[in-house]
């Protein structure tokens, strides 16, 4: 849903309409030399405390390039609404100037050129400088730093230290409270160990014991909420971990724990905070995803702010639903959300929000952060810095159906495994390597550094493959966000197909071709996959071929020396004319 007229007026009144386009302090497009730190920091501070927010940094301690999606399609009722905006539609919706710093951060448009102009994004040393700026401006005792999760996983240094390097980074940044999703892929025991090392509180109201014979059956695994005092206000913060952790990731990591959205208990905790603890403000740090949180705001009453995560949307302006203000701060450490709040006497009286781009060429690095990164990377420097080869074209990750880096991974798998089809998961984390740049081993880990990295090769019937694709398509394109899981389509190597996104479940995909031939439903195909659990459905698993995907990709790039992946996708959209349609339309 779009913001209502009343909500819009409310936001406009508080922010001043011009501020809706974040960081866009002036009408003209500024060159990097002209964009000053002042523009990035510019904020009309108000109220008695500040919430700083990050989400989905995916263990990126160092600055990186990160290109936003060039296709972000969903069901017709959702296309063109926040959470399903990209490219020109995004720029139009938020009033971004073409070629501005914000357009560079928020969209894929003209990415390579702007990357050269504005440089890398994020990085904890730069983030820390900004955080400390706000802390000194507002007074440390009036600032709360919240992390919506997907923090511990996504890079080589995270993988090699079982998450510990990232916990150290969070302690350095001064995270106060977090919740999780990919965190759980280190396994239950490790999660609990890391929480011990973490200065922040780890909270989740929707993780419950589900082993009937265990002591924690139907009991909370983590504290559901915490109450913090800042600027004289009592702030109740509830944690909402990713509801579909046990379906999106291997179940063995969280055996005995159940997740789910659990709106009923969320409502109970909101009520408890308001009625028993008399808080002035109720905040939910959530890993539901931007669109699911819009549904949650409809189902649950009395939440003031949802600081969302999971779907990696940069949302320059908050959206307001049922009195709940929802914000989300992109991914990969590219942004910090700043939310100033005026809350007294059990009520929020006003707020101001800005999604702050962490432009690492403009925000100076904190030397202590650079030193920490150096220490954390030192044991692995030789491996991570190995140049595997070069790329002719830009390698990126985000798109609903296809991306060049995923195609490279599929090419590597097909080359080594000699399979008919390769499945690579439609995660939304990864990295971007610019055309002509070296590909480092660190980049390969950024794309596939997970705790269950094995590539499996097995057999599936054509019929099973067709059903699987439909099943995955429904997880991505269901018209009801509550039935979506917030990822993109699995990337398929060796396959082309057409898709009608608005089609009914089980009937979206047509013209499915494998190896250039129409799929034979009765035929048995050799399939390789990683990062999912397809192998459990397969027959005749080739045990001798099982190998971690990052090794497969490394060896392939080294063999190829220069990789040349075309940006020609393998999926034809039947019902949309472009990748970033505007609301209510099938074109851009």
């Amino acid at each position, binding site marked *: 849903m779009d913001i209502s007229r009343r909500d819009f007026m409310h936001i406009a009144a508080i922010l001043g309409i011009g501020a809706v386009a974040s960081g866009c302090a002036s009408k003209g497009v500024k060159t990097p030399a002209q964009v000053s730190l002042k523009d990035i920091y510019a904020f009309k501070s108000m109220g008695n405390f500040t919430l700083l927010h990050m989400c989905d940094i995916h263990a990126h301690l160092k600055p990186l390039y990160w290109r936003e999606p060039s296709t972000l399609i969903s069901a017709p009722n959702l296309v063109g609404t926040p959470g399903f905006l990209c490219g020109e539609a995004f720029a139009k919706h938020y009033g971004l100037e073409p070629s501005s710093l914000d357009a560079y951060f928020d969209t894929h448009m003209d990415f390579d050129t702007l990357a050269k102009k504005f440089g890398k994004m994020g990085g904890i040393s730069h983030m820390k400088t900004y955080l400390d700026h706000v802390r000194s401006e507002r007074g440390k005792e009036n600032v709360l730093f919240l992390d919506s999760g997907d923090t511990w996983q996504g890079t080589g240094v995270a993988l090699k230290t079982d998450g510990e390097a990232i916990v150290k980074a969070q302690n350095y940044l001064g995270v106060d409270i977090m919740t999780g999703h990919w965190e759980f892929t280190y396994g239950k025991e490790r999660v609990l160990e890391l929480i011990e090392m973490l200065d922040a509180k780890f909270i989740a109201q929707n993780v419950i014991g589900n082993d009937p014979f265990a002591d924690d059956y139907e009991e909370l695994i983590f504290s559901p909420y915490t109450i913090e005092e800042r600027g004289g206000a009592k702030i109740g913060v509830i944690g909402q971990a990713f509801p579909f952790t*046990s379906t999106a990731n291997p179940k063995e990591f969280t055996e005995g724990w159940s997740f789910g*959205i659990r709106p009923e208990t969320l409502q109970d905790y909101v009520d408890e905070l308001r009625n028993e603890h008399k808080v002035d403000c109720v905040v939910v740090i959530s890993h539901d995803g931007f669109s699911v949180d819009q549904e949650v705001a409809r189902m649950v009453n009395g939440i003031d702010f949802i600081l969302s995560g999971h779907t990696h949307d940069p949302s320059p302006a908050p959206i307001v639903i049922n009195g709940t203000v929802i914000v989300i701060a992109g991914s990969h450490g590219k942004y910090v959300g700043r939310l100033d709040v005026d809350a007294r006497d059990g009520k929020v009286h006003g707020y101001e929000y800005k999604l702050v781009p962490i432009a690492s060429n403009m925000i100076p690095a904190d030397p202590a952060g650079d030193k920490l990164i150096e220490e954390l990377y030192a044991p692995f420097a030789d491996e991570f810095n190995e140049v595997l080869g070069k790329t002719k074209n830009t390698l990126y990750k985000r798109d609903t159906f296809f991306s060049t880096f995923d195609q490279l991974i599929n090419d590597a798998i097909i080359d080594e495994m000699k399979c008919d089809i390769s499945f690579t998961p439609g995660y939304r984390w990864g990295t971007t390597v610019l055309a002509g740049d070296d590909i480092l081993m660190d980049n390969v880990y950024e794309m596939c550094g997970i705790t269950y990295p094995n590539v499996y090769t097995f057999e599936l019937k054509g019929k099973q493959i067709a059903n699987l694709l439909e099943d995955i398509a*429904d997880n*991505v394109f269901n018209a009801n966000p509550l039935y979506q899981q917030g990822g993109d389509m699995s990337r398929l190597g060796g396959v082309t197909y057409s898709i009608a996104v608005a089609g009914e479940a089980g009937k979206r995909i047509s013209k499915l071709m494998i190896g250039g031939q129409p799929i034979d439903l009765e035929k048995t195909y050799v399939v390789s996959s990683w*990062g*999912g659990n397809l192998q459990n459905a397969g027959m005749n698993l080739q045990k001798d071929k099982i190998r971690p995907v990052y090794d497969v990709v490394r060896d392939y790039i080294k063999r190829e020396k220069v990789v040349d992946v075309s940006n020609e996708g393998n999926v034809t959209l039947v019902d949309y004319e472009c990748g970033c349609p505007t609301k209510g339309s099938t074109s851009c």
Partner: protein
Amino acid sequence: MQRREFFKQLGAATAVAAVALPTMSFAADAKPSGPNKMSFETALNAITGGKTPVKSDKIKIKVPEIAENGAVVPVTATVDSPMTDSDYVKSIHILAGGNSNARCIDVNLTPANGKAMFSTRIKLGGTQEVSAVAVLSNGEVLIASQSVKVTIGGCG
């Protein structure tokens, strides 16, 4: 191991169709045995004696929109009703229309239960509607249903 279970069930369902087991007629005191094949309609008819259930806000079914594990799907049915000797919920039934036997469990209650609630965990052989049916002491039959997606996952 949801996927394995899921496909085990899918595979099994075809096997059963081929064997063509006889459909059971179910006498009041008999106990189920063997694999049974009962459609949603057949099961509903057996429960209500042919009476069409009424969709009602008085009965609530709680199931996840997306099952975490198709082999273990929690389901809770509650009926907003007194539980007195003259006015109570006689039985609650859980049905899974897409399973080869749609009938999951029949729970006979008495006023001594104090509240009309039943909760368990069921296996689902795929995405489908799960229903709770309640038979009241005055003969009314109520129903509530919700779709549960049983997925193999595939994103993150």
